[in-house]
């Protein structure tokens, strides 16, 4: 399995943009389609926003570690933080059917991540949250122009 990127982020929302630039660079290097890149960036935005906004009960600085590994066209992104235990897979699916008056405002972020990724796994290890997102990559070279 090839390690293709890694980054240490501070627990500040501004850091998400830095992560997004790294993903875009990875996409350029591997000819990933813009749609696939968008989906990866969106999933990371949602996960990191949750960790940074709700993961830390103190006001101290924390680090979040991100690593991307590529194997057989599957990108595995490992996200590790030392915040409070939080398993995104335990979150109840939001109600997507109710009308606008009854629609709840929260819960959409995790739903987007679950829908856009092929697989998600979570474990709590050594007082840390370890989340692994798996995304099947589509490359621009795979696209056959229509004649």
């Amino acid at each position: 399995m090839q390690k293709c990127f890694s980054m240490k982020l501070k627990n500040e929302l501004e850091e998400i943009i830095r992560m997004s630039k790294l993903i875009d660079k990875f996409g350029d290097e591997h000819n990933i389609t813009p749609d696939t890149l968008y989906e990866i960036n969106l999933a990371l935005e949602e996960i990191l926003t949750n960790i940074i906004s709700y993961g830390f009960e103190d006001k101290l600085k924390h680090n979040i570690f991100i690593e991307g590994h590529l194997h057989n066209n599957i990108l595995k992104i490992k996200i590790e933080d030392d915040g409070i235990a939080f398993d995104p897979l335990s979150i109840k699916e939001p109600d997507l059917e109710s009308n606008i008056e009854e629609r709840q405002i929260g819960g959409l972020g995790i739903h987007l991540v679950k829908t856009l990724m092929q697989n998600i796994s979570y474990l709590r290890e050594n007082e840390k949250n370890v989340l692994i997102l798996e995304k099947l990559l589509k490359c621009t070279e795979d696209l056959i122009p229509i004649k």
Partner: protein
Amino acid sequence: MLKFYYNKHENRLLCTFDERMDSMSSPNAEKEISKKIDGLSIENLSIVFDLEKVDFVSSAFMRICIKFAKKLKKDNFKIVNTKLMIKKTYKIAGLDKLMNIE
């Protein structure tokens, strides 16, 4: 930068966005829009979000859309010039059935 264009005759507020609408930018946008509609008559007010210059939205921005759509009468909230990937994201969130997204 978020810009506003208000048509008094139609009681319609057009909001144009020109940046990534994520967890960083969306809370400020929400405050600015709330401040703007505070002085307007909510009765028959319509709000249009123009996303022509927006390439990325997260659930933080969708929450704003739900919030303002809830405040208004049915069909009085509209999103226009939406890029395909953003439309797809609204569809996954089940919002395409609740608001007019063009």
